[in-house]
């Protein structure tokens, strides 16, 4: 009996050890002297809290890759100079499993252990959680979310990196309504973000003279097959389908809609990326008539080609806008620190953001961002692309 007990304890511990070891390997591997540039006087810690395990892990990793690439490049050039002192960047990443409460706990840890003046987080829930205490605890939230709410609340230390999604609604509806027709069926992802998008899009569609024939969310974490829901949506004979969520499952929905005989166009939520969707559908033909965010590899900015090349060399895949925009944001923050003459005063850094964005060297401009709005949003133009005759074409938006 004793032996059995011992074996049980050993096996359980082994399981635990392995599980923990495996968990660990995916989260932060960074360790530094800590202490925001005080100990060796040369390191600025920048925090990141995002999903690094679980179903959204790949998304968290891609955003983190952009930040890390920017940091590595800056460090390779010998760091950056503020008030005569050279600093290096150290990205401290923690896993929050996409859960806002974990983001909050991680942020507390980051500011206490690493004194990070900036914490990046790539989801709206996490941003809203951080906004509860970021002004008291004095750190900037690097918000990678297109949710307009995060900058509407008047938080003074929030920087919204991507363009707000409500800008897409008009050009998307105009394009598809003109090309395909007035009937839309909405099959967005069943997240808060998906719901918010839907609630903005559908009223606009109706106001523009369209008709909503079907509206139901798909839960990508629960549904094994989308045939049932797509069949029901297509029964109402829509001209346009509104779909969205993570790129790959969204692409499956589009593919199954084609299999079921759908001939119309797709409005694609900005979370999904056309080039990533193509990997699932095989060709752009299945996505004919889609309108969405223009893939990074198809944009023509001064720094795009170099960035795509470097990213591909390191990660063996095309970068998406989440890597590109976070790369820009990290560069902007570093330039802002230079302009502010401070690496640890978030208020000064935030005030110098506009100058920081303007100072980004031309060859690093993966996107052209002329400045920052009063409310903390980057002033980027909407970059929209559509699939026409099996090819991605950029669509001009005012």
């Amino acid at each position, binding site marked *: 009996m004793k032996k*059995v007990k011992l074996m049980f304890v050993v096996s359980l511990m082994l399981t635990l050890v392995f599980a923990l070891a495996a*968990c660990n390997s995916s989260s932060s591997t960074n360790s530094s002297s800590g202490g925001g540039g005080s100990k060796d006087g040369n390191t600025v810690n920048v925090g990141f809290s995002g999903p690094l395990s679980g*179903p959204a892990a790949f998304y968290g990793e891609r955003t983190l890759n952009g930040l890390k690439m920017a940091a590595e490049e800056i460090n390779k050039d010998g760091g950056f100079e503020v008030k005569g002192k050279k600093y290096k960047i150290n990205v401290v990443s923690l896993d929050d499993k996409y859960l806002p409460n974990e983001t909050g706990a991680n942020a507390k840890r980051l500011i206490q252990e690493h004194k990070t003046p900036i914490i990046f987080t790539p989801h709206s829930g996490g941003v809203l959680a951080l906004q509860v205490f970021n002004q008291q605890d004095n750190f900037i939230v690097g918000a990678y979310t297109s949710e307009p709410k995060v900058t509407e609340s008047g938080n003074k230390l929030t920087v919204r990196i991507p363009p707000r999604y409500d800008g897409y609604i008009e050009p998307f509806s105009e394009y598809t309504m003109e090309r395909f027709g007035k009937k839309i069926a909405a099959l967005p992802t069943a997240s808060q973000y998906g719901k918010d998008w839907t609630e903005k899009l559908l009223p606009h569609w109706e106001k523009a003279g369209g008709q909503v024939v079907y509206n139901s969310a798909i839960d990508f974490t629960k549904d*094994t097959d989308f045939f049932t829901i797509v069949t029901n949506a297509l029964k109402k004979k829509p001209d346009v389908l509104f779909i969205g969520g993570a790129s790959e499952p969204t692409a499956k929905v589009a593919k199954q809609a084609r299999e*079921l*005989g759908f001939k119309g166009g797709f409005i694609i939520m900005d979370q999904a990326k056309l080039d990533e969707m193509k990997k699932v559908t095989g060709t752009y033909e299945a996505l004919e008539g889609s309108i969405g965010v223009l893939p990074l590899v198809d944009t023509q900015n001064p720094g795009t080609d170099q960035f795509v090349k470097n990213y591909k060399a390191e990660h063996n895949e095309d970068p998406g806008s989440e890597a590109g925009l976070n790369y820009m944001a990290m560069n902007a923050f570093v330039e802002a620190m230079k302009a502010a003459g401070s690496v640890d005063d978030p208020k000064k850094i935030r005030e110098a953001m506009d100058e920081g964005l303007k100072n980004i060297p031309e060859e690093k401009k993966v996107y052209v961002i002329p400045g920052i709005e009063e409310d903390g949003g980057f002033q980027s133009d909407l970059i929209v692309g559509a699939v026409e005759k099996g090819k991605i074409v950029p669509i001009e938006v005012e």
Partner: protein
Amino acid sequence: MEILIQQLFNGLTIGSVYSLVALGLTLVYGILHIPNFAHGALYMLGGYITLTMMTSAGLHYWLAIFVSILVVGLTGVLLERLVFHPLRHAPPIHDKIAAIGILLFLEAFAQFVWGADYQSMPTPYDKVINLFGITFTSQRLLIIVSAIAVMILLYLFLKKTFIGSTIIAMAQNREGANLVGINTNKVAMLTFMISGALAAIACSLAAPINLVFPGMGHLVILKAFVIIILGGMGSIPGAIVGGYILGFSESLGATYVSNDYKDIIAFVLLVIILSVKPTGLFAKEGR
């Protein structure tokens, strides 16, 4: 009418996948007497191995499935030997904790080896067939036909062969089976092997219509739990019938009631069935 037939077909497809997963779960229940929480992870592992065999080793779909069956089956045996066998005299709660541990381990392992991103599994059966306004794809037809074939084979194996009946004997009474000379260790390993193989088949068939990712086991495992409760714990016909009941209730419920409530419909059905037959549809006799 077309919609009804289309949705029946959709329900049949998804029900076949559910049934296969539930079958593996219910077989192991006979040995462990607890639901094996790690079954969803074995399902996921099956998908990844088939995918890797197809993309890296360049094997044909069927060969890849065969390799996957072997590997996941052996993983099942390994789990029995290393984890559950040493725990056979421990209270059931230990089995549960161990199973959850395995689940966490395998998911983290998959993310470590294959990465966290979604991958799509190519299939040689990508054709779309349109008949009388109803859409079939060959992959979906394949799911249904293969699942039914596997179920028939399993049934014949359990009922008509000597080894098969030892599995049933052991599920009914472990000590009794031991007394009449059945090698319970061997049977336990065999059962885990079959259970792993069923998970691998189910996932390899279903993966081309969805995606392969570390958390994919969660899509089916909770539903498989519902199915074996609904069908009667440890009952083989219960797992099959339960799987199809859930498949049809999802597709028809989403069509004629509301897509947003389709999970509720499945659970209401569960409540009704359990109120009438508290042990499930096909409660096991002889225990």
